[in-house]
């Protein structure tokens, strides 16, 4: 299946390679680098490239290219999914996934990759199984390791991989037993010039942080599970029970994991928490334009809207801008994409934040055809915009009493205002 993996940084340097079958020369990456050159943005590099002898499937994530070399037919999603798991694994082990981190932990990353695939077929992709084999570095451990000469490689025999619950390792012990669930909902929306909703939907995810000893068996139920239209689960969730009774019953993995993702029933109208009044205009003659954006709260269910950020993708012909914000600050980036990022912060309904000023175009450039679109970012604490509520969490199988907590957050997902 997967023959080799190359990690490539945005400038085209290959800084890690791993082969699971015969070695493939890294010159195969040239095809990819060529395609990368052609693409305007790293995101535009086609994920699947067909070369005379190999197929290159790549992902771009965290400013890194993960390029896999394939020799025979394989479902492309299989490879893509795996590559993302590799990125997630690096993130999980070292806190972030970046070139420096990988370079710092080259050997460990290599060992992990060795364990994840056998002959190109995934062997152990569950983070807890891997962690049992190769312990993630901690500051304390690295100090101890250097002093005592012990290592990060687990010498215990892995039980996780052998069990039918591969996601949980045996013998977990905590002094404080806690289980936290974050219900995070994202609003994906497209609003048109007049502020009417072209398209809106809510996507949610239940993130869990479970630190419980032993083999707890949890049951999470919702007040209004009917809201959920389409769901996908962590493998630990018993699907049959969800189907028959709409409860999530599972033996949780240890630590952080995504319990479920869901899509809220399309029939429910989506409450849009903010409105945006904007006018961006370019004068027909001369090389000037005006920008005026105001953001205000709309349907917020009485909560404060925080972390509001507006990103304006301006036309490339903009030369400079001169804006003033009544609240927050704005930055202007004149790189490959001309963007203005306006960081507003908390929305105050009494005094609506406003950003206005003038734009100046390159001399002689024609008036831009399209007005730039605005991307909105926001956050509302303690509110799940769909109205989803966790009813209760029960634990069976262990005798202690865990500390339980649920948090709701609403965020803007791909929230776009057309102008």
């Amino acid at each position: 299946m997967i023959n080799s993996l190359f990690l490539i940084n945005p400038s085209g340097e290959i800084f890690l390679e791993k082969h699971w079958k015969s070695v493939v020369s890294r010159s195969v990456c040239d095809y990819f680098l060529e395609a990368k050159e052609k693409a305007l943005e790293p995101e535009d590099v086609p994920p699947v490239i067909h070369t005379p002898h190999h197929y290159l499937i790549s992902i771009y994530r965290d400013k890194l290219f993960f390029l896999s070399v394939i020799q025979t037919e394989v479902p492309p999603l299989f490879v893509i999914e795996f590559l993302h798991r590799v990125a997630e694994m690096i993130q999980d082990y070292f806190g972030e996934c970046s070139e420096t981190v990988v370079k710092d932990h080259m050997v460990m990353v290599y060992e992990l990759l060795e364990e994840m695939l056998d002959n190109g077929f995934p062997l152990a992709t569950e983070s807890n199984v891997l962690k049992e084999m190769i312990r993630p570095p901690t500051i304390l451990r690295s100090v101890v390791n250097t002093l005592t000469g012990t290592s990060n490689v687990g010498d215990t025999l892995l039980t996780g991989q052998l069990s039918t619950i591969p996601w949980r390792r045996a013998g977990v012990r905590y002094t404080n037993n806690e289980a936290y669930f974050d219900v995070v909902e994202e609003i994906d929306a497209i609003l048109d010039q007049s502020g009417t909703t072209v398209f809106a939907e809510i996507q949610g995810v239940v993130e869990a942080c479970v630190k419980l000893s032993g083999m707890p068996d949890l049951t999470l139920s919702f007040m209004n599970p009917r809201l959920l239209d389409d769901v996908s689960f962590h493998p630990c969730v018993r699907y049959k029970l969800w189907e028959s009774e709409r409860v999530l019953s599972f033996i949780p993995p240890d630590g952080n994991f995504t319990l479920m993702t869901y899509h809220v029933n399309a029939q429910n109208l989506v409450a849009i928490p903010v409105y945006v009044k904007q006018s961006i205009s370019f004068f027909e003659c001369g090389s000037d334009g005006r920008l005026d954006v105001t953001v205000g709260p709309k349907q917020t269910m009485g909560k404060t809207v925080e972390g509001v950020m507006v990103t304006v993708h301006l036309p490339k012909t903009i030369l400079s801008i001169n804006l003033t914000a009544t609240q927050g600050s704005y930055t202007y980036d004149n790189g490959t994409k001309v963007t203005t990022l306006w960081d507003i912060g908390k929305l105050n309904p009494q005094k609506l934040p406003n950003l206005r000023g003038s734009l100046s175009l390159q001399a002689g450039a024609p008036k831009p055809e399209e007005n730039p679109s605005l991307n909105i970012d926001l956050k509302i604490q303690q509110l799940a915009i769909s109205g989803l509520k966790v009813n209760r969490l029960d634990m069976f199988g262990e005798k202690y009493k865990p500390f339980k907590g649920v948090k709701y957050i609403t965020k803007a997902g791909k929230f776009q205002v057309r102008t």
Partner: protein
Amino acid sequence: MLSMSTNNLSYSDQGGTDSAVEVGQETTPTSSNAGAGFGLFSVDFKKNEDLKEMLESNKESLKLEAMKRVVGLIAKGKNASELFPAVVKNVASKNIELKKLVYVYLVRYAEEQQDLALLSISTFQRALKDPNQLIRASALRVLSSIRVPIIVPIMMLAIKEAASDMSPYVRKTSAHAIQKLYSLDQDQKELLIEVIEKLLKDKSTLVAGSVVMAFEEVCPDRIDLIHKNYRKLCNLLVDVEEWGQVVIISMLTRYARTQFTSPWKEDGVFDEHNERAFYESDEEKTRDETEAKPYMMDPDHRLLLRNTKPLLQSRNTAVVMSVAQLYWHLAPKNEVSIVTKSLVRLLRSHREVQYIVLQNIATMSIQRKGMFEPYMKSFYVRSTDATHIKSLKLEILTSLANEANISTILREFQTYVKSQDKQFAAGTIQAIGRCATNISEVTDTCLNGLVLLLSNRDETVVAESVVVIRKLLQIQPTQHSDIIKHMAKLFDNITVPMARASILWLMGEYCERVPKIAPDVLRKMAKSFTSEEDIVKLQTVNLAAKLYLTNSKQTKLLTQYILNLGKYDQNYDIRDRTRFIRQLIVPNDKNGALSKYAHRILLAPKPAPVLESAYKDRDRYQLGTLSHTINTKASGYLELSDWPAVAPDQSVRNVEVIEPVKEWAPSLGKTVKSKPAKSSDDKFYSDSGEEEEKGSGSSSSEDGSSSSSSEESGSDAESHVQKNSSQTSEESDKSSSQSEKSSSESDSEKKERKTKTPLQKKTVKPTAKDCDSDENGNVAKEANSSSAEESSSDSESDSDTHTDSDSGTEHKKKTKSKAKPKVEVKSTKDVSLLDLVTPAPVTQHKSSVLSPSLLGDLEGLSLSNVSSTIQLSGPAFVPEKSHDLLHRMTGKGLSAQYQFPRQPCLYQPTMVSVQISLTNTTDHPLEQIHIGDRSPTGLNIHCFNTIECLEPEASVTVFMGIDFNDSTQAANFQLCTKEDHFSVSIQPAIGELLLPITMTELDFRKEQGKLLGMNESSATITMAAENMTSQPISRPVATVANLGMVPSSQDNVHRFAGKTANSGAVVLVTVELRGESTALITINTEKSVMGSMLLRDLKLALAQA
């Protein structure tokens, strides 16, 4: 790599700087540039010398440090092969980390240094015999990864041995090794196929994915190896790890296409029928459909569809996609749409995932617009999308366009046209063009819109518009001369060559419609001819020629002028064309023959271009494959065959399992039979203390299969009941705390109670069934309490939870399995709940091929032998017959059917469970389906939960419990939807009011002795001689009444036992065959009315038989 290594070596000869190793490391170039300079290589060499010393030292920590650096070199793609001798010495190290690193190194370089690699082999051979399964596995893994041809025989031997290892993990590794060996030496194919065949039979979920992968790689054409394992694989699928699922699903897709007939014929006929059948048991369907329909889906085909459906909820996008393609290629057309939602969900995932999924949706949406139309807005383009995503979305939107939504789509397109991404804007214009040709209603609107775009400031947009307009006009040439005029007017402002050429071509082609304008355009072109692009020049020549033919009076001179210009053009194409045209149109003596036809040559009617999707022909590849993505055949792509016209023999998938049939026969001694095989499995697990984990796994896989054999939706609750048996005490706690559920304290309470383990069981539940041994007592009570205490379906779900987690269960399980055989005897009445486990109730007499083998599969899967012993009192036979509850005509489109699943009711033991299938045959969703008023008023019904919404064409199966009070009086109630009420009634046959029980012959006689006189009714009937053997007798009896068989010592006497659901009165049936063709039926029960009614039914049934 090899070339690099030689480089390195040769350079290293000159090396010799004494720079420190640390410095060398820092300056190491990370790029692949091999010619970076001597200095660097010499540093490398120097460092390697240093590493060699470290590796040969005695200090473990030094070695480790060295190995780490060596592996670091490998990771960076540097050559470290000359360290091989030093490294390989450490292969037998005690230090696990060091060992692992050495393994990593070995696997990387063994191929290059084969002789030296052989030094390590003996270490692995020793490790292959290690008592620890993980060491065995890792030894095999490394051994098989060393690509040295000389060790092929050793590998072969190791694989063979590992394939029969006790540990499934080692067996999994051996499946991986098969592929490695095969790629090393293809001659081993035959031997390897033998191993694959063996591993395919493996029942462990760990092995399944890997061995199927090996199968796909080594012998994908040996489809015959799959037959016997097909059902097992289907049933295991849910529990296989996610990557294995993908491989198995794609293999099964291919398999199904060769083995089943197409479900796509006569779509209309079985639409509705199939939809309903989906939720029913296979037996059900086979019978129904043989009666009514020509097409009958193979039960195995259905099994596959049903078992893959839950995987649509997987978090792994590859799994979801593979299920989607399976449905696309295998499911009846009306079922394919269930994958839509999941595919749309994947669009939220990473960009690369979106790309692949959108590609597949693009292919799907061409053939099946309806599937994705409701989700049209999910394909709206955002300005932040990557270019390839944008164009795919555009593609899909275009495919989805129809009369109803075209206005919305066009409005959306309008926004896209203004996009800053001009490439995308151009794509949008093409999309508009396609919409315009596909939907004739909007052609004019689109044309007008495109004409407006001609005044756009952006050239690419204008050019694209012109090209698209040209294509549109070609399709509808009759009108629109004003558009041509308009374009002629714009001609001066358009600079893009392609667009100019297009306009010129239009002028020429339709010059008769614009007789005045065309010559003028030609005049302008003559003026600017020299400064035009080649393509424009060519079209100018064309235009001139056409005008010359149609309007020579006005354009003769102009044409000659242009031809003269062309004659001396720099481009030979243009010179050629000019010469050709001149000869063709300008009459002279030589070419008279040709110029006669000039008009017909130049102004021949041209076929309109067809604007169609780029994804049109992608459907020749299987969806979700690499070949589909790149639109060429990837190496190793396996064609999906067409459906066979006639289905190959179905019976090849039958697994010979005579034993299970025997086991169901009511002889108690045999039931223990399946135990030995199981215990060997357990042995392996018991050492690592994972018995219960295995338990949960295998029992949950049983969930899948048992439900598959009974019914889809509602039955999962029942299947857990097996587990309940071990956990009933908590269970009852639960049901008691059910009421307090709202109070947040209850869980702590529960915990408290749980701590009072077996002891509590005894004390809390006073039952009459306390008997001799402790353990027996417990178990009997458990069963009892579970049947008594279960009041809501909620409680079951929770109990399932318990078994998996409670580490304390282990010992309980053991005791239970010991106790089991006896339980049978003692707890005649109480075991009933456990009966639920019975997978695919004994249909051994039925024609259906599915169930016996299914059961065979199940048997291997279940951990404890609970199920096989308990089967004795499971329903001997479940009739497939379903009855109409509400016809769709009277129900205004809502149709309902009911049947008796013959399972003890979960809600209350006195109830009879009824399975109702509701189908919406209308075209709008039905909301809030629930049960309303009932009569007689005292009627005790456990309603099903209100169904919020039933989509059109969808059906749902629900369960309800009805207490018939041991009478055949009909239960009347109202089935309500949001708007309507329909009165319906269920009239049970007398035989359905019974529950089967088991007892020994002795007990049977004892009971019979108590029920003589008034309580006995009997009759003599005549029946055909060939039906005198036992099988035909038990079948009609089982069909009529839900009775269990009682072993009989006499050949001609058959005994059946049951109890009434409500009062629990024992019903004993004896059929005694006498002489040639007569039989005496005797029924003993204190419910004499029921007895006589049952007698009547039995008489009728047996006389027929």
